[in-house]
């Protein structure tokens, strides 16, 4: 009996329409927990090696965790995974909201999608009933519009994910949208749904979940909410949500500005958390069972119109605000809304737009090619580019490929400021003076994403003047010293196990990471839900196993994969930061090699960054080691 789990895997073949339900294997649950663990393992086992991401045979895994849907803080997370259209390797993305719990209440822990529907389709799951329906009337329409329409048609109690035109048009960084403000944003999973002609999935579940100790869980669960509320950060965090970190990131000189040309934005106070609260916010919008709703739902009015939108979150502020240099929070929110309705990742969308604007500035793209003039600091330019990308119209067809491919095609040195790793655009932390963060970006499995290992705090602690210096120098807080490069690997590795563990459990990591809600609380809650006694370290071992597995997957799927895929763009190791708190700093190519060498060593990977047989066997992946040895 798998306590905590709904117990069933639901497979839908979109080509044939065939639906299959099988029990969740005990050993899968035991060794991989759920969520990201299930995604990684099922992709490894079931995706035929060499499949193109847009081929009907590409597999999409949608997985909840054992704690999803239970009375545990922030238990609304769902994990999505596939072979990435952006990188050609491992792709996953995590999403909040209410979809995962609904899937579990309907009776399913995992949803596996294969094949391609012959016409636009949406999937409706209502407890044991699973049906494919025509999405003809929704195809071409916005992600938010479609969710609203389907809720009206099916019932408000349905929890729905949708793609927008960007996914339909196979934009390599198209996202999945949900609940008017949540996304599975990264790695282009929306485009894979688009390639399958799957416009939406709607779920209603009225069943309950088996709990090992329901009375104990009710008591500990209630306690957990009280404990989280009692944490010192609770009151300070929620009102501004993630936007509240904007000030600090600028003050430490890590804010992506003007396509990462520099790392400090003088106008940051117009686009920070305070601006969100004062100018936009209507509601603190939260995910399922979350005590610290980080969503800021509000209304923004600009010269281009008025929109209701969730956000902007920090990342959207960083890449639509900073990288594209938009001067007001209303403008950032408007651009955010455009992304949301089109079904575009705001991170990649912002970076791609910024790349295009820098190309134009440098004369590498002409007005004729683009279709009009485009400039930083101009909302119209940003919106124009986002709409072009989503429709693949004109210049959009190049941009929809992502900066790596677009720059490869355009040439003329535009790759030196195409800000990505492995083909996925960089998220919101400029890291030329943050070696730990740089290493995290270089080695994240999906490409340049921060959420595997957010090491910036530790980097700043290392580069900030000591308190003694502060006192004696009378402040000295305006410029940061160069952060030490050595000794970063261990911290990054720890974070790469801790943060994704929550993706395996099906819950949010914020209460742990930002508020300090202790790991032992999760041990207790995990036991009460599942009946399994696992210490924090044992839970982390699962996460470590998954880390090596996703690396092995990318090795299997990307020809010649290895060290050379782990480097950042030339801007970061050739151009010193021109101004701000980190003026003059950057990391040399040699320093990047120091980071990688130390990391591979600590990971038990060879000099080319491939997990050794010994390492794979140590973490319970002997079968993976064998497969790699045999060359797939």
């Amino acid at each position: 009996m798998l306590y905590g789990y709904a117990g069933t895997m639901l497979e839908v073949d979109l080509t044939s329409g065939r639906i299959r339900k099988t029990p969740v294997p005990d050993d899968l649950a035991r060794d991989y927990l759920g969520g990201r663990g299930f995604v990684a393992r099922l992709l490894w086992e079931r995706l035929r090696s060499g499949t193109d991401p847009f081929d009907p045979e590409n597999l999409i895994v949608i997985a909840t965790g054992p704690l999803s849907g239970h009375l545990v803080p922030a238990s609304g997370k769902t994990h999505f995974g596939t072979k990435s259209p952006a990188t050609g390797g491992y792709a996953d993305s995590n999403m909040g909201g209410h979809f995962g719990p609904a899937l579990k209440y309907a009776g399913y822990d995992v949803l596996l999608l294969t094949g391609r529907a012959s016409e636009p389709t949406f999937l409706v799951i209502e407890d044991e009933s699973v049906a494919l329906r025509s999405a003809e009337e929704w195809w071409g329409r916005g992600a938010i519009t479609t969710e609203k329409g389907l809720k009206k048609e099916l019932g408000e109690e349905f929890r729905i994910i949708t793609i927008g035109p960007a996914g339909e048009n196979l934009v390599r960084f198209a996202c999945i949208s949900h609940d008017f403000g949540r996304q599975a944003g990264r790695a282009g999973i929306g485009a894979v749904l688009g390639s399958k002609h799957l416009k939406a999935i709607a779920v209603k579940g009225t069943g309950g979940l088996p709990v090992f100790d329901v009375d104990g869980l009710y008591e500990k669960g209630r306690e957990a909410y009280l404990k989280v509320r009692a944490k010192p950060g609770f009151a300070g965090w929620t009102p501004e949500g993630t936007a509240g970190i904007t000030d600090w990131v600028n003050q430490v000189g890590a804010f992506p500005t003007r396509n990462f040309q520099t790392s400090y934005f003088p106008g940051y106070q117009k686009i920070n958390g305070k601006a969100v609260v004062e100018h936009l916010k209507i509601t603190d919008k939260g995910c399922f069972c979350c005590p610290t709703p980080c969503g800021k739902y509000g209304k923004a009015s600009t010269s281009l119109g008025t929109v209701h939108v969730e956000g902007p979150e920090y990342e959207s502020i960083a890449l639509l605000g900073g990288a594209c240099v938009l001067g007001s929070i209303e403008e950032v929110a408007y651009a955010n809304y455009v992304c949301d309705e089109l079904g575009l990742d705001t991170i990649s969308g912002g970076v791609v737009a910024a790349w295009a604007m820098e190309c134009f500035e440098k004369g590498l793209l002409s007005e004729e090619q683009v279709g009009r003039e485009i400039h930083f600091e101009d909302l119209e330019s940003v919106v124009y580019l986002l709409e072009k990308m989503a429709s693949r119209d004109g210049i959009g067809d190049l941009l929809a490929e992502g900066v790596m491919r677009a720059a490869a095609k355009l040439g003329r040195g535009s790759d030196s400021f195409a800000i990505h790793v492995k083909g996925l655009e960089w998220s919101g932390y400029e890291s030329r003076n943050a070696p730990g963060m740089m290493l995290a970006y270089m080695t994240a499995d999906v490409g340049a994403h921060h959420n595997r290992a957010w090491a910036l705090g530790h980097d700043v602690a290392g580069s900030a003047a000591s308190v003694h210096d502060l006192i004696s120098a009378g402040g000295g807080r305006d410029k940061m010293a160069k952060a030490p490069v050595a000794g970063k690997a261990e911290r990054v590795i720890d974070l790469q196990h801790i943060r994704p563990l929550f993706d395996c459990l099906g819950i949010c990591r914020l209460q742990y990471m930002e508020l300090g809600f202790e790991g032992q609380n999760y041990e207790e809650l995990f036991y009460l839900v599942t009946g399994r006694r696992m210490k924090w370290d044992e839970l982390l071992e699962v996460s470590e196993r998954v880390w090596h597995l996703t690396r092995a997957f990318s090795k299997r799927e990307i020809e010649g994969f290895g060290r050379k895929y782990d480097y950042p763009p030339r801007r970061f190791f050739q151009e010193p930061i021109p101004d701000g708190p980190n003026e003059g700093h950057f990391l040399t190519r040699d320093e990047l090699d120091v980071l990688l060498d130390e990391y591979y060593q600590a990971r038990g990977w060879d000099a080319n960054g491939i997990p050794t047989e010994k390492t794979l066997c140590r973490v319970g992946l002997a079968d993976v080691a064998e497969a790699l040895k045999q060359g797939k």
Partner: protein
Amino acid sequence: MRITLHLSGGLRAVLEQLPEQVKLEVEGPASVRDILIQAGINPVLVMVVTVDGDRGDKEQIIDHDAAIGLIGPMAGG
């Protein structure tokens, strides 16, 4: 003034040697920044400040017994 500092999980992660609560006697009035320096905490590591439950900032002047919440570096989303 009797000041109690409440350190968030994220802050303690980068200041491993400090407990969740730090009590100190400070000659008032003093800015939050000065109080942090006196406590041996580099102000640059503090992302968000609350004073007696309300959101504050590092330049704020404290002139009474206060509970100061300190949130350390944390990721956005």
